[in-house]
């Protein structure tokens, strides 16, 4: 660094650089390179280096600051209902903005059930796709299919919602729901009246949306299973399915659970598509075909029209809860996926 500062005064700069490497000896007889001349015209590098380092550090720390700021803003803005209702906020089921009585239980229920429906539909399909892509698929098809699933992940939520309103909901109402009512009405989960929109429609569109995430992560985890495992199982005389079950799925199970939790994290916070098809009704009903609401959808649908402070504070508190829940879910998922893909993976246990 000291060398650099002296440079402008001494014309013999190239010579000073000579000990650095053999190449420099060649340039010694030539005039200074354009890069060096350009650099010489710039200021003191000791200050610049230090400042640059600090700016980069600041930007890295800003990620912390953002998370802290979000948490702080949410807590401060929801203070009104935090102090007024306390923990009762999450067990009360009244949602009455006119009388300022707020309980978030219907939304917590809606979020949990719609995510659960989505997982029940998506997980077997995602694992099936991952098995097909890693173990059975011809190479040429693999590229196309993984590209298609990537595209599925890139479609905006609002477009899923639009499609769900005009294509999926009529389809469910006309063909699929009647079958479900006929076959499964004894469980109480699928009972008339059926409006098309409701918890089940939200679960189905959520399943379509989280499928790409779960299947691509599962695929990653499954490719991380060493080939020796597969070969060992095959050598024992297993069929392909037995090989997949014992050699691959067994070794990848922790990672698969991690990717499912990551999908759950996405499903919990998914807003627009759900808000458009769930029917926005703050009620708890056993039938999945009845309209409901989730934590995210109630914020999206009611925030802009929430005029008084308590109402707004209640919605922000729901946001705070959603923030905390998704953070916990995401941390769990990351730790699991990380443990599998980075730590000692897939040893025979």
């Amino acid at each position, binding site marked *: 660094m000291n060398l650099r500062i002296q440079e402008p005064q001494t014309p013999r700069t190239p010579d000073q650089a000579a000990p650095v490497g053999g190449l420099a000896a060649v340039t010694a007889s030539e005039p200074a390179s354009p890069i060096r001349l350009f650099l010489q015209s710039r200021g003191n590098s000791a200050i*610049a280096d230090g400042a640059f380092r600090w700016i*980069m550090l600041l930007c*890295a720390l800003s990620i912390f600051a953002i998370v802290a700021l979000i948490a702080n803003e949410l807590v401060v803005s929801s203070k009104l209902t935090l102090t007024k209702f306390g923990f009762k906020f999450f067990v009360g089921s009244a949602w009455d903005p006119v009388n300022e009585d707020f309980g978030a239980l219907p939304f917590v229920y809606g979020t949990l059930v719609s995510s659960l429906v989505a997982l029940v539909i998506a997980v077997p399909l995602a694992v099936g796709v991952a098995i097909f892509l890693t173990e059975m698929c011809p190479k040429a098809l693999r590229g196309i299919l993984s590209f298609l*699933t990537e595209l599925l992940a890139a479609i905006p939520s609002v477009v*899923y919602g639009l499609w769900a309103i005009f294509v999926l909901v009529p389809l469910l109402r006309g063909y699929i729901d009647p079958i479900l009512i006929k076959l499964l009405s004894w469980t109480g989960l699928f009972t008339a009246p059926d409006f098309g929109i409701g918890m089940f429609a939200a679960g189905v569109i959520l399943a379509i949306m989280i499928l790409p995430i779960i299947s691509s992560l599962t695929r990653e985890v499954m490719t991380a299973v060493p080939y020796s495992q597969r070969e060992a199982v095959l050598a024992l005389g297993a069929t392909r399915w037995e090989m997949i079950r014992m050699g691959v799925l067994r070794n990848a199970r922790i990672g698969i659970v991690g990717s499912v939790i990551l999908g759950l994290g996405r499903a919990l*916070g998914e807003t627009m598509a759900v808000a458009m098809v769930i029917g926005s009704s703050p009620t708890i009903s056993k039938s999945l075909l009845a309209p409901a609401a989730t934590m995210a959808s109630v914020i999206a649908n009611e925030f802009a029209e929430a005029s008084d402070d308590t109402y707004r504070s209640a919605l922000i508190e729901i946001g705070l809860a959603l923030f905390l829940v998704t953070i916990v879910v995401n941390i769990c998922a990351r730790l699991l996926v990380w443990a599998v893909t980075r730590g000692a993976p897939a040893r025979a246990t």
Partner: protein
Amino acid sequence: MNHLASVLAVLATILVIAPLVAIFIDLVYKGTSSLNLNFFTKIPAPVGEEGGGMANAIVGSAVLLGLASLLGIPMGIAAGIYLAEYGRGTKLSNVVRFTADVLNGVPSIVMGVAVYALVVVPSKGYSALAGGVALGIMMIPTVARTTEEMLLMVPNSIREAALGLGVPTWRSMVSITLKTAMPGVITGCMLAFARVAGETAPLIFTAFGNQFWSTSLNQPIAALPLQIYVYALSPYDEWHRLAWAGSLVLIALIVVSVSLVRYVTTRGVLKGAS
């Protein structure tokens, strides 16, 4: 059992691909039929009137995304440089990396609520600026993580060569290391861009939407995803058609950028460098 499992796996794949194909066919079929020049040049018509377009929403989205990029890309790249160049292997960088991943998983609606409390309430009004801030914050973690990954792929010999010539550290990072990894970094920026381009939830109560022309930063501004949302939930057929056309335009934008990204990455980002 063996055959049954194979059939099930193939069936699952078909079931997963079917909605995607259906969505694209519906979008193209319903979108193109109402896509015309008016869509790109006119502002929304009042209820009951034929015609009208989404020109203001397209411009509004451009303004919002410009603001978001201005905030998110430099900060994301800087954080990525710190993670890859200064903080390699340190505890601090591990924690920052983890926080970035967590921030990535925060629902966009929560981001909207936070920015509402942070920007909209103090400035006493919905504004384009608030929308840009919300989208910008969402870009930071994605940009930071891809920048870091790309910088880690740059061979050390290049850094050593630059430092050996007496180039100051900061200069070598900006002009040599970052420049070598540029195609990959741009890929990351475009992925982040494509992701926030379709975001609606954080805009509902920050940018708010606008039926008229506005490019002012402290006024509510229209955005394509917001307009699609409002039109999709409206009871008018004409507006439904416009929503489909808007979705087609939005998807085209995103698919083009994602395909471009894929094209660049599969060709080997750093081929020239190593």
